[in-house]
């Protein structure tokens, strides 16, 4: 605010004292925010800080309980997504809203003003225009389901701006992207900024906010904790900024979190502390072994072919690779959710191919799924019930088929405490918890009652820094007690931080296993992109 530009231009959007209350939670508490044209405004905060609520209000999915919204200086009420679009606010949600079976052009025309006949040629022209505005190339006739996630996101952005929106909201746009995808996104945002588009960029990753944001606002527990102006961002040193933001994001718990941030930020240090193939790997007792396992994919999802691996007690085996190369099939084949077409899955040296999910579960095999909302929890059931979904019918929680609520609640409240699940109550619907707390719930469920082999699928995906670090600590803790862990992740940094050995999954096959060490990242990188020749298994 030091250099005041002579006539302050009218801001694209002003949120004034927005308040939104859900049962048991104050999601937004008098939040005021200003978004200007030609500026990327980053909204930073932990999961559950109220970012998504604020964005839902702005995009017309939710109505605020109090407060007002101004667009280009005029007060408006946004009561449906259609209103938001009419006011020139386009939103790209975290999860794809494209219809995979339709082409890019068809998807875009869905968002167009409805007319009796589809204006294919007009749409084609508009697409070309928008693509050059973003500085990207999009094939109008490609089926969106066939496009890479980064490309799909570009289509989503085009779709959001299709009707001439001048405000673009991006909800956690990088959570699905590869590093190259993130780079392309940043380039596109720069193009848009030059055209005067106002951009709201929601993230919980500090380095991203620093990389793309012209202005950063930090939310914590529903309140706006503070903002950093463009001047501050330009003049302060990176360390000062980081410290200031972490203080704003986490408040009084700053000390240990700053350490965590340092950890994930500074790879070299991390390697010194945890890295290296030594230590965690013990030769004794193979707990899980896959021998030439093949499993079929479902729909467009990749299966796996001829995957062999072994994990010993006290070991964390990483599985790296770009999403969609068979990760889910691998995890589900181990867990028993997917039929193995050939090869064997062995637990403690015994083939378990024919055992059901629950039978493997009883043997001590656990699977922390990546699809937390889709298959991890039942949204409408309570937290305590969700904690015991994998033990339905088992004594002592069920006796003669009858549920013992008291015992379940007692056990559940202990788990809630132990895993620090933030919930208003044990009966609260699990669907109302924030993403981080859902993951804690799943960890509590999977890691209780004597786990021996645990498959973690993207365990920290979409989580904020602090929860992610907490999850990693849980994984380490688990193996230090003699269990074995398989961590399937697309986050290479995370794998290098956690694992003794890292296997690389590429095009349905395990193309190599790398011992963690100084050059692991480059080795894995070349295995992923395929420059290192995969060992051909006949």
């Amino acid at each position, binding site marked *: 605010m030091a250099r005041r530009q002579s006539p302050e231009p009218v801001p694209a959007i002003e949120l004034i004292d927005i308040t*939104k209350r859900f*049962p*048991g939670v104050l999601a937004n508490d008098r939040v005021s925010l200003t978004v200007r044209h030609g500026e990327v405004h980053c909204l930073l905060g932990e999961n559950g800080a109220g970012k998504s609520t604020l964005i839902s209000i702005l995009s017309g*999915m*939710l*109505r605020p*309980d109090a407060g007002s919204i101004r667009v280009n200086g005029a007060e408006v009420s946004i*009561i*449906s997504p*259609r*209103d938001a679009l009419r006011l020139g606010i386009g939103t790209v949600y975290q999860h794809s809203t494209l219809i995979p079976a339709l082409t890019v052009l068809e998807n875009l025309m869905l968002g167009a003003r409805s007319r009796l006949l589809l204006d294919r040629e007009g749409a084609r022209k508009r697409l070309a225009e928008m693509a050059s505005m973003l500085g990207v190339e999009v094939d109008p006739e490609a089926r969106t389901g066939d496009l890479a996630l980064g490309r799909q996101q570009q289509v989503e952005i085009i779709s959001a701006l299709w009707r001439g929106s001048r405000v673009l909201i991006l909800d956690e746009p990088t959570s699905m992207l590869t590093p190259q995808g993130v780079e392309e996104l940043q380039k596109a945002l720069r193009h848009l900024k030059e055209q005067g588009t106002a951009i709201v960029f929601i993230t919980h990753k500090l380095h991203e906010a620093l990389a793309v944001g012209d202005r950063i606002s930090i939310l914590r527990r529903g309140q706006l904790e503070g903002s950093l102006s463009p001047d501050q961002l330009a003049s302060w040193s990176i360390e000062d900024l980081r410290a200031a933001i972490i203080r704003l994001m986490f408040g009084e718990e700053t000390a240990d979190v700053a350490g965590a941030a340092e950890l994930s930020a500074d790879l070299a240090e991390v390697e010194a502390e945890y890295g290296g193939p030594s230590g965690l790997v013990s030769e004794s007792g193979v707990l899980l072994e896959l021998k030439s396992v093949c499993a079929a994919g479902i729909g467009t999802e990749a299966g796996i072919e001829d995957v062999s691996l072994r994990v010993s007690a006290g070991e964390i085996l990483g599985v790296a690779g770009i999403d969609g190369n068979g990760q889910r099939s691998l995890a589900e084949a181990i*867990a*028993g*959710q997917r039929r193995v077409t050939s090869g064997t899955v062995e637990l403690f040296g015994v083939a378990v191919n024919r055992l*059901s*999910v*629950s*039978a*493997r*579960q009883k043997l001590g095999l656990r*699977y922390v*799924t990546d*699809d937390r909302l*889709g*298959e*991890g*929890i*039942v*949204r*409408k*059931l309570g937290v305590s*019930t969700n904690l015991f*979904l*994998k033990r*339905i*019918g088992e004594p002592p929680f*069920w006796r003669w*088929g*009858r*549920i013992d*609520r008291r015992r379940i609640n007692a056990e559940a409240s202990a788990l809630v405490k132990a895993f620090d699940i933030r919930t*208003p*109550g*044990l*009966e*609260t619907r699990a669907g109302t918890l924030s993403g981080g707390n859902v993951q804690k719930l799943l960890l509590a469920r999977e890691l209780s009652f004597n786990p021996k082999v645990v498959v973690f699928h993207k365990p920290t995906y979409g989580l904020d820094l602090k929860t992610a670090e907490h999850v990693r600590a849980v994984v380490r803790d688990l193996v230090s007690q003699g269990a074995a862990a398989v961590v399937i992740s697309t986050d290479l940094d995370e794998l290098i931080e956690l694992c003794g050995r890292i296997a690389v999954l590429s095009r349905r096959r395990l193309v190599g296993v790398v011992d963690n060490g100084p050059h692991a990242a480059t080795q894995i990188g070349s295995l992923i992109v395929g420059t290192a020749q995969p060992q051909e298994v006949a």
Partner: protein
Amino acid sequence: MAAESEVAPGIGLAPDVPAPAPARLTRWWRILLRSLAPVILALIAGGLLLLALGRDPVQFYVNVWQGGVESGGWQNSAVLMTPLLLIALGLIVVFRAGIWNLGYDGQYLLAAALVAGFGPHLLQTWPAPVAYALLFLIAGSAGALWTVVPAVLKAWYETNEIITTLMMSFIGVGIANILVKGPFQDPTVNIPQTRTIPFAKLLPNLAGTRVNLGVLVALGAVPIVYYLLTRTSFGLRLEVLGANPRAARHVGISLRRVIVTTFVWSGFLIGLAAALDILGLWAYVRANWNPGYGDTVIPFVFLARLNPLVIVPFVAFYAVLSTGGDLAAQQANLPTDFLLVLVALILLFMTVIEYLGRRRDLGHSYLTPGLREALRRPLMRRRPAP
């Protein structure tokens, strides 16, 4: 759960009751409101319709009350409740699992034909309790058996059960008719119908009434099904399957077993409904006869939100409306189909209220933006915006 909901509003912040009780209370109110509102609105709309037809709506509803409740009318209503309640329970069980058993007609009629066919003979050769038990078992098994094909197709091959149950229903109805016209045909009459079970051999009535024992069986099944669905591991498995099938697979629930068991239970209850209905009321089955209980009971199953306790007052309401309505319609010189209009109106208002309620849950206003605009426009015209 029961213990917690008894907490009075205002003192709900005791440390061991984390969920605030007032919120729970308002939720119950809201559910009650949303369940009753469609019925009330349908009665009002039906009244307006009667008015438009030149009938006196007040008189009509008074007649319904008199025919369905007063002067022994309640006894007829209670008798009608028996099959409706059991079929409703059978549907609640499957719908809770997210499975659509729409083959109730076939399951019911097949069971009914078997009971009417074997009934006369069995009741003559065996002591009544044994014969009843046997007939219940036959009917229940017939209903259950008729769900097995759709159940297996769904459990193993993920076939759409809406289609398979409907197809099996047609086959079931056809076979029931063949049985009635063929092996079970009463040789003494020319009309295609089964032999009649002697009046003395029908289910005994409750003391001093014309209401047979069947209604007790149906009412007795209510708490059993409720207990099964809310307190047992089977009930929870079923609920998880209904709420999120992928989660059910993930947590290791045997989908096949749950699907087949659920279907069989549903069919059993529907078959039992047929047995009680034939042994308690009809005593025989005529070819091409179909009381169509399932179709009428479905709206109420959803109004009761698949709750086996809440369904009882709804079924009672319909039973009264139906028995009293037959009479009232005759007196008002209307076809009895007018009752179906009322049921359809309930369905219509239920859909509307469900939609509005969902908007409310999402934090929107009850009014849709278009409607709000339409309401606002006449006002805007008078005071043009500056």
